[in-house]
């Protein structure tokens, strides 16, 4: 009886959610600013642009070697962001795990991290750009903030999945907090930690590309922005897009394996 009622309730909530979202969508279409472009013409033009981008990529200002170097820079920035935020998130994650820290501390850490995560990455980068100047430094520090927010939550949840009895057994032997962390918590959650970190690396790569284009920070995203909005060079836009797309797909293939790893453990 009870199960049936909860199933009915779930059905009703699903319907209500779907209807609400649909209503929002219809309202959005009615009030949207469609700009000055003739939509019919714009669709045709976009298809033609896609043709040029994907079938006639060429290098003009940016040589293929340059584009590759820019891609490497972008990957490097993503690696730095992931490493810096990973180290800090490891400490915050320990403080945010319910089985390792007092409740008042975990609540505080989780609240701070939720606010950090709620601020879009681009705003973080621009906030740090005032102090550090626009460039790779602001990009890394700004993106690290958002990355810390994500990884702290992921790490803390990994630590919380640890069996309580293992910690209690160590406590009974008189081990101190650091010994528990280094002998039990970290070794038994390493697979999770590495998997989450890699998944975040994938996101950080996307974010670095985005920061380059939207904030002019660094890396291949900036070349993307210049080729498109400054030089209107579709062929070069195509070359850059292929580079980013290729690396993103490689990362995704690895990430799918990593996720399978997470599920099996």
């Amino acid at each position, binding site marked *: 009886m009870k199960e049936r009622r909860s199933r009915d309730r779930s059905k009703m909530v699903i319907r209500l959610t779907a209807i609400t979202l649909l209503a929002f969508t219809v309202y959005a*279409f009615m009030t949207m600013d469609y*700009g000055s472009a003739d939509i019919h013409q714009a669709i045709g033009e976009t298809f033609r642009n896609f043709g040029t981008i994907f079938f006639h990529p060429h290098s003009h200002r940016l040589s293929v070697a340059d584009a590759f170097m820019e891609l490497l820079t972008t990957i490097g920035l993503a*690696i*730095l962001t992931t490493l810096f935020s990973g180290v800090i998130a490891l400490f915050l994650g320990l403080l945010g795990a319910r089985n390792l820290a007092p409740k008042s501390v975990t609540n505080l850490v989780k609240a701070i991290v939720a606010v950090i995560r709620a601020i*879009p990455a681009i705003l973080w980068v621009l906030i740090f750009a005032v102090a550090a100047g626009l460039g790779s430094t602001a990009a890394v520090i700004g993106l690290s903030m958002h990355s810390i927010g994500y990884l702290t939550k992921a790490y803390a949840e990994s630590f919380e999945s640890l069996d309580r009895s293992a910690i209690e057994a160590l406590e009974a032997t008189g081990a101190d907090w650091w010994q528990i962390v280094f002998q039990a918590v970290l070794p038994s959650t390493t697979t999770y930690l590495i998997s989450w970190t890699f998944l975040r690396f994938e996101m950080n790569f996307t974010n670095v590309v985005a920061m380059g*284009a939207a904030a002019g920070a660094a890396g291949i995203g900036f070349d993307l922005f210049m080729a498109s909005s400054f030089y209107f060079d579709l062929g070069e836009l195509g070359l850059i897009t292929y580079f980013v797309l290729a690396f993103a797909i490689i990362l995704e293939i690895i990430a799918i394996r990593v996720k399978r790893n997470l599920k099996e453990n």
Partner: protein
Amino acid sequence: MQTDIYIRRRNNSLMLFGLLIVLMIVSIAVTQYDVGRGFTSLFKALEWGLSTFYPDGKSLGKLPDIMAKLWDTILISISSTVTAAVPALFLAFMGSRTTRAHAAFTAVARGIGSFFRNMPLVAWAMILMLAFSQSSLTGFLALFFGSLGFLVRAFMEALDEVDTGTIEALRATGASYFHVVFRSVVPCSSPQIVSWLLFMIETNIRDATLVGFLTGTGIGFAFDIYYKSFNYHAASLVVVVTVIAVIALEAISNHIRKAIL
């Protein structure tokens, strides 16, 4: 034997640690990242933030304008997600193991999803802007394509997870394909699908802010204007409003998720 485990464990962690250090040094060299400035800028940013980056009385006058921009961003995030869900559902039904007509369709659906997903969002925005110029429509379309890629994969996983036992049982009774889909697959997977929709809307609010910088719309554009005119008080108000909106939306989604899963 006992010591062997410890030695191996220590060696493994030392190796991992060493690898990460090398990775860091190479990255610093390639990107010309300034370590010293990285540290000093942290303190400078904190000092600057406390002294100028907070909403003051005058900036509160901009609140109605900021709220209107935020509303635009929320509308675009929801509408792009819902619109993208339609073709994504179609592709997912075509490609999922439980509902596909032929195994070859899985590869097609996966390929389409992978292309849309991995194409950088900013590239979509830049390409669309060439023809559609700076407008909400451009932002909507960029988010639409990005969401489409993600939702195809998410929906396909949701459909794949439907228990094949019930489907086979239905088939054994002679039920038609559409009967199986609407009686078994849809009811079983709809909680997952709605949950992914909510997740996508949350993600799109953040991404819409980013796209807004390029397309000149929504809350991202509001921040951009105030930031570039050095009106940091108003810019910080944008941040505060965004944080409240994102956290409220997360809370609502979590509430709905709890009720349906």
